[in-house]
């Protein structure tokens, strides 16, 4: 296919061009208008987002809430808001995502757990926090899902996300979510401590536990987990390992495998580290109540609160 030179404004004798009405703008003016329009509107939009800064990326902010996309939001929050406003962080999966870390007093603990999160993703968040300020305590969830897969599971949580705080689809969704919550047409999904409010639908527990697959360990992810703990230790943070509770009946199905899994992770934790295992006899009364575990492994919000209070007590001791 040959280029169509007949469209050139400069060509004399180009019959198609001659037949068409004269353009209202010169080509140079047209280009200037396009470039200036994009620069002015795009620049103003970015400047407005920089000023409003709903994710607390560019300015210090005491309160920031999540309204959309947990991974994108927690990544941005981990760059500034979390290290500036919190003493401690919890890294984990959906098993700890609904834990209200605001109850761990007198610490201010942010819950960096991700639904379906793995160690690679948790490591990114924790490194962001440590890079800016050393946390006093890092709580590490011990849960098979963390080491079952490797790498980012979504396109989010990269350095490019930082610039997306100047204007992106996720940012627009954040504004939309905030507006909906303020107008009462939607409910707040997270609190200011990163706790996610969710209701796990009740389902047969054997559907949650699918045998050996549940404890599949990706060696690279396991390495990420170890590196994450080592980085936290190197920063001077106190290390607390937390084994989230599972229901007693679920434990009967999966307990042996679960303990085997825990043994794989234990070498990452040293003698001075605090290891809290909620699958031990002192917690049997909470664990044996089926109502606390809709699917055997996720806690209801009220049950999660009970365990978080216990966690706070053990840490303060």
């Amino acid at each position, binding site marked *: *296919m040959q*280029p*169509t*030179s007949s*469209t*050139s*404004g*400069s*060509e004399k004798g180009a019959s198609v061009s001659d037949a*068409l009405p004269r*353009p*209202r*703008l*010169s*080509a*140079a*003016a*047209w*280009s200037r*208008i*396009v*470039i200036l*329009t*994009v620069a002015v*509107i*795009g620049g103003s939009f970015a400047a407005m987002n920089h000023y409003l800064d709903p994710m607390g990326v560019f300015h210090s902010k005491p309160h920031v809430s999540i309204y*959309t996309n947990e991974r*994108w939001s927690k990544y941005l929050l981990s760059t500034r808001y979390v290290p500036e406003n919190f003493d401690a962080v919890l890294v984990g999966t959906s098993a700890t995502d609904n834990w209200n870390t605001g109850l761990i007093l007198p610490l201010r603990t942010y819950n960096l757990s991700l639904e379906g999160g793995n160690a690679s993703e948790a490591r990114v968040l924790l490194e962001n926090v440590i890079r800016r300020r050393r946390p006093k305590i890092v709580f590490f969830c011990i849960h098979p899902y963390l080491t079952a897969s490797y790498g980012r599971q*979504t*396109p*989010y949580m*990269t350095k*490019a*996300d930082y*610039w*997306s705080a*100047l*204007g*992106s*689809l*996720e940012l*627009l*969704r954040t504004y939309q979510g905030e507006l909906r919550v303020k107008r009462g047409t939607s409910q707040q999904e997270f609190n200011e401590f990163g706790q996610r409010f969710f209701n796990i639908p009740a389902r047969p527990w054997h559907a949650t536990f699918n045998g050996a697959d549940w404890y599949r360990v990706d060696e690279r992810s396991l390495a990420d987990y170890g590196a994450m703990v080592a980085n936290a230790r190197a920063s001077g943070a106190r290390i607390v390992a937390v084994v989230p509770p599972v229901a007693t009946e679920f434990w009967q199905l999966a307990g042996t495998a679960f303990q085997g899994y825990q043994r794989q992770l234990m070498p990452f934790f040293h003698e001075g580290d605090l290891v809290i295992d909620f699958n031990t006899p002192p917690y049997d009364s909470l664990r044996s109540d089926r109502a606390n575990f809709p699917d055997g492994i996720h806690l209801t919000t009220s049950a999660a609160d009970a365990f978080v209070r216990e966690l706070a007590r053990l840490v303060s001791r």
Partner: protein
Amino acid sequence: MPFNSFPFVLLFLPVVVIAYRAALRISPAAARGALLLSSLLFYALNSWKHLPVLIASILVNFVVAHRIAQQSERRPRVVWLWAGIVFNLGLLCLFKYASTLPLLSVAIPSWGFPLGLSFFTLQQVALLVDVYEELLPPQRLGMHALFVSFFPYVTAGPISRGKRMFPQLERGGNDRDYAFDAARGLAIFGMGLFKKAVFAECFRTIADKGLDHPYLLSSLEAWICSFAYTMQIYFDFSGYTDMAIGVALLIGFDIPRNFDAPYRSRSIIEFWQRWHISLSQFITTYLYTPIIRLFRRATLRAAAIATMASMLIAGIWHGSSWNFVIFGGLHGLALVANQLWKKKTKRRLPALAAWALTLTWVNLAFIFFRLPDLSSALHVSRMLIPFDNPFAGSAIFVSPSARSGVKEIADIMARPALWTVGLPALIAAPLAVLGPTSHWWLDDFRPTLITAAAIAAILLIAFLFMNSANATDFIYFRF
């Protein structure tokens, strides 16, 4: 730093355009020097460790082109031509296929695949043949290097012929009104960026959710996801080409068009006249024609053999897996059937049926292009035929919670993604088969306030999508 990145759009491109136009005021030679440096820098920024491969390829082909031209006898000319072809194909095979051969994969370290190797190799093979046939004289080293490494096309084409590029490189651009071409360049660059950032990415979201779980798809989902990939690759590649053409126009050059509404085609022959046009022309000129010349007479049988052989080679050019062989083979079969039909019968299919049949076949072939292995591609192809209830197991319309992998397709169509995935897909799909192409629009380009506002708007929307986490590399950067 691909075209769809902010460092390229906001920094590299403006600096190069300004530097080139400023250098052109000094002399075309100074401008060529600036452009060559920019092109090598662009390549290095995208794939620095493979820059030596590009430079070595340029130097060897430069020497071979001169050797061919220096020979007065036919025999040494043929020998040098074949030496050049063997070198180029060897380089391509070394990086593309060697790692898949059991013995060689051990002997050869993993160097990765040099960006644009398939394209700049073919471009130089064409150049050597043109020099051999005395259609072009061999060029100075700087000119040759710039022709090969010219940054608008070095990464993924369009494959440009020397007879088009060398006169422009000599003059320092085409001889048209620069301001008008720059405006057209800005317009088509914006359209290409929009195609990639908005349309291609929305179809990628749908296609990936399904085709990443090929064994979970129902028939309906197989159709939706494969069709989404067919759309994705069109908007991705034609978006890239539009940007390449726009970048070239902004500097002051014309490079070939590569797409002309391929999904409107009513036959496979027409499809290949509209899809990846520069590759089709290369195949016709440098594969099909030499193969058919091997036969005494250009019979229908000879044409069929030449077509199949050309398309199989074109398939393998994409990669070393059986999937690409089948991709080429399916197109080869369809082209042969199309040729036979044209020769043996005067009957023509109704336009709608011909269009639907063509698009379905193209869609089927792209399944083999997209899926990572033969068994999953065969499985998805089989799923296109609903042996039982096409909705059976469908996660979209029947049971969103049935199977975890595919239920996400339903999530995409749910509210949060409606504006960023559902709506663009609903606009883009009809555009691909019915609407005007960016080139038709460009040919009729008028610098008015309305077009300025339209281009500014699509640039702003494209930037918004680009700055979201869904920006990915171009599909053809892999080849």
